[in-house]
């Protein structure tokens, strides 16, 4: 779920950019170090980035009006770790805003925070934790993907609520309202993504 261009007022879009940038810079630093050791990773990461874009651009079955979804970044977080994912996610989100008009430039910071950093990180840690206690593999995959989606949606709502708190009661009612209006599309989406994720992993493992 992308926040569209122009929706976040000052100073909120700047704040999210300022928060996202250090993550990106650190991600780039890690990436550069990795590539200095092994240059062959660049093409692999590039193709993986292409895959993530394409996966998120495909319309999920049975969900009308859903645009992009963060499954790809969760997959990337599990495969490449959160920092590299931050860089790939940033590029993918930039391309999504320019190729598909999903998201925007000023809102890129906020979208990167929710879809390329916090969501995937949450999914990543849930997966690692479940992995550690030897939880059923496919159930862990489902939960990780589901959490990644739900967290992304919560963060987006949080970003919107912070920018537009309710006149009476402030931040919390607004957050509740945003969570409410987006729940209609985002919760089924999270379940479907979890299921799709399981099928993908089943497929990959069989091959």
């Amino acid at each position, binding site marked *: 779920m992308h926040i569209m261009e122009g929706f976040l007022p000052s100073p909120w879009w700047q704040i999210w950019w300022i928060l996202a940038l250090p993550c990106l810079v650190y991600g780039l630093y890690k990436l550069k170090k990795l590539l200095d050791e092994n240059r062959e990773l660049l093409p692999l990461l590039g193709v993986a980035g292409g895959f993530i874009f394409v996966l998120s651009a495909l319309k999920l079955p049975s969900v009308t009006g859903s645009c992009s979804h963060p499954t790809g970044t969760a997959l990337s977080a599990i495969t490449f770790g959160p920092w590299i994912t931050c860089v790939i996610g940033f*590029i993918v989100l930039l391309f999504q805003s*320019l190729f598909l008009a999903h998201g925007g430039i000023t809102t890129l910071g906020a979208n990167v925070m929710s879809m390329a950093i916090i969501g995937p990180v949450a999914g990543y840690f849930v997966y690692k934790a479940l992995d550690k206690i030897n939880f059923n593999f496919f159930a862990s995959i489902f939960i990780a993907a589901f959490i990644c989606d739900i967290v992304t949606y919560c963060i987006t709502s949080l970003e919107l609520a912070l920018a537009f708190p309710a006149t009476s009661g402030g931040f919390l009612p607004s957050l509740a309202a945003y969570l409410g209006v987006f729940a209609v599309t985002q919760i089924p989406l999270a379940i479907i993504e979890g299921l*799709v994720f399981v*099928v993908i992993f089943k497929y990959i493992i069989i091959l």
Partner: protein
Amino acid sequence: MYYEFLEDIAQTNGLRNVNSAVKVLLGLGCILISVSSNSFIAPLFISISLSLIIILLAKINPGLYLKLLSVPLGFALTSIIVILFLRNSGEVIFSLPVLNTFILTITSGSINESVLVLSRLSGGMCSLYFLALTTPMTEMFLLAKKIHVPDVFIDLSMIIYRFIFVLIEEAGQIYSAQTMRLGYGNFKESINTFGMMAGSLFINSWNKGENLINAMETRCYDGKFAMLEETPDFSISNLLLVIIFLTAVFTISYLTSEISFLGDVLS
């Protein structure tokens, strides 16, 4: 599932040969003015003038452009509801008691703010469309290089760019093949079919990545990527026009900053 990317339209638009730095300046300038405007007038002005530029100068099919404008509609309407009901100030215009527990109200203040946010969204999206439809990404890579974006970021972006198009075509073919064999029939099958496509695409991507390593090696890859040559047609007059336009929009934004939709001053 035949994907239409704005990028492909941008490759053949009417302003293709205008210097990309000038176009980016106009697009980003408008986005910034739009998002920091205190009144709905400047963003509205930006929406209208950029839409005209997109249709008349960049020669984008008007029907297609209208379709594009509807993309952010779903998001805009759902998110604006919250502002409409929760950001109350000024006189009450409409109220609706819900289950005797609380009352949903719309006030002049919340309408004013909704209109302002919607107009910013519209100005922002039109500017974004201007950027996306007139300036191909292929040209922006050069611009990024010039403003010293780190090489690793640009190189990675370029490979991602290339493979988006390779993979989307493949995804389209797989999707067609599945549809022809009556996939995506019911919900369960849909999930399964979609997952299979994504999984197969993942494996193919991995193979392509390995092939790419080979392709780069055969061409003596030494950590360098070539950049596109500069467009020759940088014109001062274009730059001046853009600066004049931005100044005008900024002036409008400044002069109208006190005006709101229903006439009340925002509290």
